[in-house]
């Protein structure tokens, strides 16, 4: 079982970091343009899909989702989690050094904590060992074809 990451896999984690944070920012900006949605006007959520910021946010989040699934195919959830959070650091640093925005002391402390969190996890194996019957979602064992072996066959 692989524990060390190839350069290509680090690129996938970098894409996870960037697409999630920029996508969320675009969604937030789009929703502020759409306005408040209440229980009586839930249909507005569907109109929101035509907002350019929301469209761009959705495209980036689809890219995030693809990279995230690839990362989860060779790494633990608790290994990938800090990578997604580190995207916030990227956005904060971009806003400081590119947009020249002011970062408060608490935000610098936040950046330090997230960097430490990524450091803790980066030094650990990407995938921890699992017992053969450790998967509670696992169904019956796969049978003949190679594709059948890829199928989770879960019983929910």
């Amino acid at each position, binding site marked *: 079982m692989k524990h060390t990451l190839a350069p290509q896999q680090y690129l996938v984690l970098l894409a996870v970091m960037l697409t999630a944070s920029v996508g969320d920012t675009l969604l937030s900006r789009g929703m502020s343009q759409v306005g408040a*949605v209440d229980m009586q006007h839930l249909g507005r959520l569907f109109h929101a899909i035509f907002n350019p910021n929301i469209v761009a946010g959705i495209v980036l989040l689809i890219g995030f989702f693809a990279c995230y699934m690839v990362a*989860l195919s060779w790494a633990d*959830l608790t290994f990938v989690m800090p990578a997604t959070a580190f995207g916030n650091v990227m956005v904060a640093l971009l806003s400081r050094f590119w947009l020249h925005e002011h970062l408060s002391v608490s935000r610098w*402390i*936040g950046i330090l904590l997230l960097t430490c969190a990524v450091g803790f996890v980066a030094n650990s194996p990407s995938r921890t060992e699992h017992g053969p019957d450790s998967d*509670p979602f696992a169904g019956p064992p796969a049978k003949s074809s190679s594709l059948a072996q890829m199928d989770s066959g879960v019983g*929910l």
Partner: protein
Amino acid sequence: MHIASRLLAWSSIGLVAALAIAGEVLIAAAMRKVGDLDEIRARAGLGGAIRAVLSSRAFLAGAFCMAFNFFAMLYTLSRVDLSLAAPGIASFTYIGNAFAAKLFLKENVDRRRWLAALFVCAGVFLLLK
């Protein structure tokens, strides 16, 4: 803030976090079962990799949770200040994921990973405050 609107805000945040945790754990379980997508793509092409992912029921259930999470998040962002919603959802999701990964995925969440989850919560909270 009025008690009713505060209750609504925190229940929306809790719902978004719960859906995210359920979705991520189901997708992680599915992807673990499917195996390394890069290897599958090399062996069976992109179509084979997509077929392997889409034939997993855990993945479909997880994707449903994430889609529902998306609309719940849009609703929450339209009702709750981003400065409260973003750190709240992120903190609940990261801690919840660590517990769920330990409980359901049987990941070896050692002291270092617990510490990382706590640092992520505190860091995201400070960053988005």
